[in-house]
């Protein structure tokens, strides 16, 4: 199916465990993004990627690691989960990232609700 998907949709993990959230898009968009959404904070950018093997930090990158070996995949790893990382995580993709001369809409995945106990 075309679009952008995230897995898992729900995850409960314990403090200190490593967890990976997956994101896959079928449009061959160059740019991909990871956001976290918390009440009162809106959407905050964790990491983004302009192309395969090119990633950069966003506003709140601490405690997270990303990789992008293929254009269509952009996994987000919490190396040692903490309670403060309990949140809803959204992946998005776009033809541009606001870093070029044009601007394109972002398409969001359905989100992953992560609870760290």
């Amino acid at each position, binding site marked *: 199916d075309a679009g952008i998907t995230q897995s898992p949709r729900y995850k409960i993990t314990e403090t200190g465990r490593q967890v990976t959230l997956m994101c896959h898009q079928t449009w061959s968009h160059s740019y991909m*993004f990871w956001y976290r959404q918390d009440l009162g904070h*809106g*959407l905050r950018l964790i990491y983004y990627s302009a192309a395969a093997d090119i990633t950069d930090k966003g506003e709140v990158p601490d405690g997270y690691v990303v990789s992008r070996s293929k254009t269509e995949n952009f996994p987000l790893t919490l190396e040692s989960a903490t309670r403060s990382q309990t949140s809803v995580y959204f992946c998005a993709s776009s033809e541009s990232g*606001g870093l070029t001369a044009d601007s394109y809409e*972002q398409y*969001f995945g359905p989100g992953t609700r992560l609870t760290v106990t």
Partner: protein
Amino acid sequence: QQPVQSPQAVILREGEDAVINCSSSKALYSVHWYRQKHGEAPVFLMILLKGGEQKGHEKISASFNEKKQQSSLYLTASQLSYSGTYFCGTESGNTPLVFGKGTRLSVIA
């Protein structure tokens, strides 16, 4: 730096109009507007570009004042389906999109 949205929340009756504002302290290249319904992902509404070009596909209008670094989203004759949280996102040259904290809009019958 995160753009500031106002109001934080608004309640409308069907058929009423609303304006949501978004302002930034930085010079803006573009402003994006998204709507998020409860429990769902944000969905794109429109982009307003420096120079006046507007891209969008919904029956909702917006303006972009480049000199004041402000944008406003206009929802006229509101419908129940307009309910949700509206986010503006701003681009300032060589930085990725930064979203505001959102405006919660509730339309009641």
